[in-house]
């Protein structure tokens, strides 16, 4: 018998062009709660996917109770006692709790009919065991997220899980539900189940975990008993990186008056009193964790989502922005984070996508002017170095980097004053990233206002003149280039600590 219920040794997992896990290791003892923490993109998700059989590792070992396993699919991992409660729950909201628990593993009578009496009894007992005294015959959708999560845990328990992975289990729970979840975790621990607890919230790790493992850039950094960690050491372990010269930052001339002024933007459950100013000739970075409210802030400014209260001023004038159309009319360009879902019409041509946000500029009379469209399109292709066979090529045939350039071209063609880049370099190669930075530099040189939302700290620090940090829908920090606190540690503190 091994000391560990699950042990990962020297795991390497690569995707085309990316090393997602580089000699990663992790181990969890029976009856232990192991915390796992790392920045966005540090490799936590891939690690979980290797553990649960979604991805196969390129090399390295996965040991369960000391025996090497090669999971081909999630079913095999579950069979070996490794269960995962995902962030996004897969609940049949209209079916009773019982059905949700027994989906695919129905208990039947001899006649072949389902034995609901038995299933209800087991479901009730299991939920009770997890500390939830509920009516299991009611539809799952009538219960809150906390209970629904318990259903997932109950499924794991009934499958005799030796280890349960919880991927940011508290992100959508109320304080009360979190308290319940912790109780359940401790109960499972007492029964000898190992738990891998992935969280963005440091205080939760300190409250719940026995040990914590830190990962960064796909690599294993350190594992220590919780008593040997503190806030600073955890954050340092997560950051610990030097900036190199992949950021061709060129400072501009900051405008006297702010181009954009946001006052007390609020949206219940999403944004809390967000106020800031952005100037022409500067890059304002927005940092924070995924879900901190950065994208939501930008969508609110752009009129894509309704807000409950707050005011937006453009160049000193109160702007009533009710729709993206109004925002574009006010001179705002928004390069959305999801370029395929929100930025581009994939089955349409490059030429059409490039004029999409400002078609009236390309009209003569009631018809679209092909000459104007082609001239603008060819200029975009040349300026942005879009690699394509021609303006008629469908956008879906382009690489990620070139697609992103089409999005940039589309917005440059609106002649906006304020450009919001939301995670614009995600998923594109390093060369294309630099080209995106060069576009930002050029906009700044022209005296335009650039807002850059990014989850990558090196990029934010490399390109921003000023950085605003958000956490849980609030602004929790602001740093200026050249000041003492313009560094990763300060950003991480603002992003992670209450």
């Amino acid at each position, binding site marked *: 018998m091994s000391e560990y219920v699950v042990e990962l040794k020297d795991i390497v997992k690569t995707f085309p062009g990316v090393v997602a896990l580089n000699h990663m290791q992790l181990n969890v003892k029976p009856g232990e709660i192991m915390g796992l923490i790392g920045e966005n993109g540090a490799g936590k998700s891939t690690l979980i996917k290797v553990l649960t059989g979604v991805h196969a590792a390129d090399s390295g070992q996965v040991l369960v109770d000391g025996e090497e396993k090669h999971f081909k699919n999630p079913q095999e991992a579950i069979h070996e006692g490794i269960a995962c409660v995902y962030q996004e729950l897969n609940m049949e909201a209209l079916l009773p709790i019982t059905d949700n628990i027994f989906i695919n593993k129905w208990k039947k009578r001899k006649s072949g009919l389902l034995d609901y009496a038995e299933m209800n009894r087991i479901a009730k007992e299991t939920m009770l065991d997890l500390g939830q005294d509920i009516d299991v015959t009611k539809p799952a959708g009538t219960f809150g997220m906390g209970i629904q999560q318990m259903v997932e845990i109950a499924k794991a328990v009934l499958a005799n899980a030796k280890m349960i992975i919880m991927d940011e289990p508290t992100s959508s729970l109320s304080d009360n539900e979190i308290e319940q979840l912790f109780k359940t975790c401790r109960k499972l621990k007492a029964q000898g189940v190992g738990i891998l607890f992935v969280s963005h919230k440091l205080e939760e790790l300190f409250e719940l975990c026995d040990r914590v493992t830190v990962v960064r850039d796909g690599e294993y950094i350190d594992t220590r008993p919780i008593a040997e960690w503190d806030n600073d050491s955890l954050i340092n372990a997560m950051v610990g990186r030097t900036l190199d010269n992949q950021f061709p930052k060129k400072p501009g001339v900051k405008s006297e008056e702010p181009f954009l002024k946001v006052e007390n933007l609020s949206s219940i459950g999403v944004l809390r009193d967000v106020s800031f100013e952005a100037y022409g000739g500067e890059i304002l970075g927005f940092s924070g964790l995924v879900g901190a409210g950065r994208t939501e802030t930008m969508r609110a400014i752009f009129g894509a989502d309704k807000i409950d209260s707050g005011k937006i001023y453009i160049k000193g004038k109160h702007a009533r922005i009710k729709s993206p159309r109004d*925002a574009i009319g006010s001179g705002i360009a*928004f390069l959305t984070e999801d370029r395929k879902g929100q*930025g581009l019409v994939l089955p349409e041509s490059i030429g059409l996508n490039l004029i999409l946000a400002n078609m009236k500029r390309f009209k003569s009379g009631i018809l679209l002017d092909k000459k104007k469209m082609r001239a603008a399109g060819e200029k975009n292709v040349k300026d942005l170095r879009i690699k394509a066979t021609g303006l008629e090529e469908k956008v879906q045939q382009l690489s990620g980097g070139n697609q992103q350039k089409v999005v940039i071209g589309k917005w440059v063609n609106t002649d906006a004053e304020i450009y919001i880049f939301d995670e614009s370099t995600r998923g594109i190669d390093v060369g294309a990233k630099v080209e995106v930075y060069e576009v930002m530099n050029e906009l700044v040189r022209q005296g335009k206002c650039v807002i850059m939302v990014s989850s990558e700290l090196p990029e934010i620090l490399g390109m921003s003149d000023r950085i605003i940090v958000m956490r849980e829908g609030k602004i929790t920090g602001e740093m200026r280039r050249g000041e003492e606190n313009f560094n990763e540690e300060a950003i991480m503190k603002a992003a992670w600590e209450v």
Partner: protein
Amino acid sequence: MKKSKGSNLAAYAGTFGALLILCIIWAVSHDRFMTYNNWMSILKQTSFNALVSTGMLLALITAGIDLSVGAVATFAACLAGCLLNMGVESTPVLIIVALAASACIGLINGLLLTKLHLPHPFVSTLGMKNVLWGLALIVTGSKMISFVNRGVDGIMWLGSATIKGFPISFIVVIVIYVLMHIMLTRTSLGRSIYCAGGNMEATRLSGINADNVLIFCFAFSGLMAGLAGLVSIGRSGICNGANAIQPYDTDAIAACIIGGASFRGGKGTMLGTMLGALIIAVLRNGFTLLSVASSWQNLVLGLVIIGSVLLDVVRGRMAANALRKAKA
């Protein structure tokens, strides 16, 4: 640029070929098929479906559907008949009221979809179809109403008049198809319709009022169906509320899909739809010439529709595969 135009035309080669083969089969089977008179009658029949298909195409491009087009056409005719029975004997008034009512019904379909957030136009337009079926029977008292010799011959002109046998209605169709082709390919509204179907969210975030684009499509669909209703009056001289449940909608869907439109939206052209409408009309015409029972006609047309949708699915898969290979 030149090359892409060539390949665009090549996309119609299959549809055109199918039409040609069908014509050859009918010509061999029946000696009256290739006569001038028969072809004029085919064009007359095509007119109705071609008009109804115009609206259907717009709905399909936005990744929606308009199942009420056939019922709108019938209702428009019945409304005119009802007014005539009530003593309204002015042709322009009858035409304007019928067309305005049709456009309004389309507008309501659009508003139900965008402002009242019904999940898919399938729901609202299917409901509307039944509402109009009922209304068409109510306003006509469930009786056929004749327009012949009642002093409103003008209303029948569109559907019955010809120039040396060539139907005026088909000339109107050609004009509308040319204008719509320009609208869809060369105006910002037209391109917005394709974009809304290709990616609604990206279109909205590009500052295009996607709701208004959809409302326009459905209102226009209603208007075209109303026009088709007037054509039907000219062809038969009567209106009949029971026609509201004729399979006009499915004929229109078949014309669009055969012509290259897709249920996934973002695709479809006027030229393709015209070819599709011709194929349907030629198919029905040949059956009639060969005295095939209408039950068999229905059966074959049903198979054609299933076949064309299958074609759409296969085309989608092939495109996805080609894309995958091109990227690899």
